[in-house]
């Protein structure tokens, strides 16, 4: 028994001395970076493999789960999941007013596991909005928006708005009554935006060419609207989110990792 145990330990130790092990886990499990839990160590390891760790970081910032609840990380995870499930949905969906609704019904009756993929997309979208909001709340409550992170807060606000817009544009795509009138209402609200809305204060654009007309692409919600919202939902907004997220993460690294307790 003891011999076996010793052997096992030796084998384990010898693996821990290899360069592969050190490259992945490095000094996360030993020395000054030893962390409280295996999950924290794993996250640090992933962060190290992706070169996300800054040169210097606060002691509190090492405890990711306990301090930030990983809300931002979960938002990224949801975004990745949405990109994957969204790509699968695009295989069967046509942004055509005569096809869109029946395409969405096909996910229920014709496409194997279509219900699973579509509902994953739907529920993940809800969760992403929820977790982005919770992330913002956490950052606010812990004062993590303070210098040198002011700019990252602003970038975060843009990311929140883009998340909301992605949610709003995706709402139209099933092309049912709820979607149609929901988007009619949403675009009508655009008319009251200052400057770029026709009915808002300081309006400079006329009713046929304001932000409402640009979104709808005509006098009322129709084929041009569906195509515009589809392109916004599947191309323009995700790409903007990816670009801003990259900058968001780079700013975190620049500021010395996630903020520690103040």
């Amino acid at each position, binding site marked *: 028994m003891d011999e076996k145990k010793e052997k096992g330990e030796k084998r384990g130790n010898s693996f821990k001395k290899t360069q592969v092990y050190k490259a992945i886990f490095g000094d996360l499990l030993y020395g000054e970076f030893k962390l409280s839990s295996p999950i924290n160590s794993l996250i640090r390891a992933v962060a190290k493999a992706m070169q996300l760790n800054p040169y210097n970081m606060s002691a509190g910032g090492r405890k990711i789960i306990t301090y930030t609840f990983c809300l931002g990380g979960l938002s990224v995870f949801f975004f990745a999941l949405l990109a994957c499930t969204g790509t699968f949905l695009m295989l069967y969906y046509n942004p055509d007013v005569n096809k869109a609704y029946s395409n969405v019904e096909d996910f229920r009756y014709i496409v194997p596991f279509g219900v699973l993929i579509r509902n994953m997309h739907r529920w993940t979208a809800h969760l992403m909005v929820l977790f982005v909001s919770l992330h913002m709340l956490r950052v606010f409550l812990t004062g993590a928006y303070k210098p040198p992170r002011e700019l990252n807060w602003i970038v975060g606000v843009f990311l929140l708005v883009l998340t909301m817009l992605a949610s709003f544009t995706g709402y139209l795509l099933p092309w049912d009554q709820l979607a149609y*009138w929901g988007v*009619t*209402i949403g*675009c*009508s*609200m655009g008319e009251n935006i200052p400057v770029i809305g026709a009915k808002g204060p300081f309006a400079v654009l006329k009713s*046929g*060419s304001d932000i409402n*007309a*640009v979104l709808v*692409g*005509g*006098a*009322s919600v*129709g084929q041009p609207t569906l195509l515009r919202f589809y392109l916004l939902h599947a191309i323009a907004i995700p790409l903007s989110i990816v670009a801003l997220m990259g900058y968001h993460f780079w700013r975190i690294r620049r500021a010395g990792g996630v903020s520690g307790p103040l």
Partner: protein
Amino acid sequence: MSDINLSADNDYEPGALLEKPKTVTRRAFFWAGWSSFWILVSLWSFSVFRYLVPRVSYEPSSIFKAGRPEEYPLGSVTLIPGRKVWIIREETGFYVMKAVCTHLSCQPQWIEKEQIFKCPCHGGRFRKNGVNFAGPPPKPLERVQVSLGDDGRLFINKDHIVDFASVLKVSASF
């Protein structure tokens, strides 16, 4: 050119170009390039924003004819589905209202039994003459221009919003 003599007889003098005031300086060249760049960017952004609103819409025209006046019974409210208007015949005459709620652009429904328009989205209520009396709508339904065409049919122009009280009077023979 005569100021600068580059011929073999007279060697090129360093700094000769600086004494010529009309020579384009590096700074002027920089500003010319920088400003033309931003002019190009602004023109290009204008083209992008203008691109978003096409010149022609393939939707049904906002100017159209809607049958003879005698086809509409007295007191009736008729929805023209593709055009999103109601044609209303009263004793005083005809008026045409946009089937667009003044709150957030949903389409109200005419409830014959209660003789009011109800908007399903946020519960807006309008009387038969278009006056808002309950719910969030801030103003009455919009009336659009209606006239009798040369062929005796109703001629409706949705682009032309008319006064709230305006009514098209038709002869009593109908």
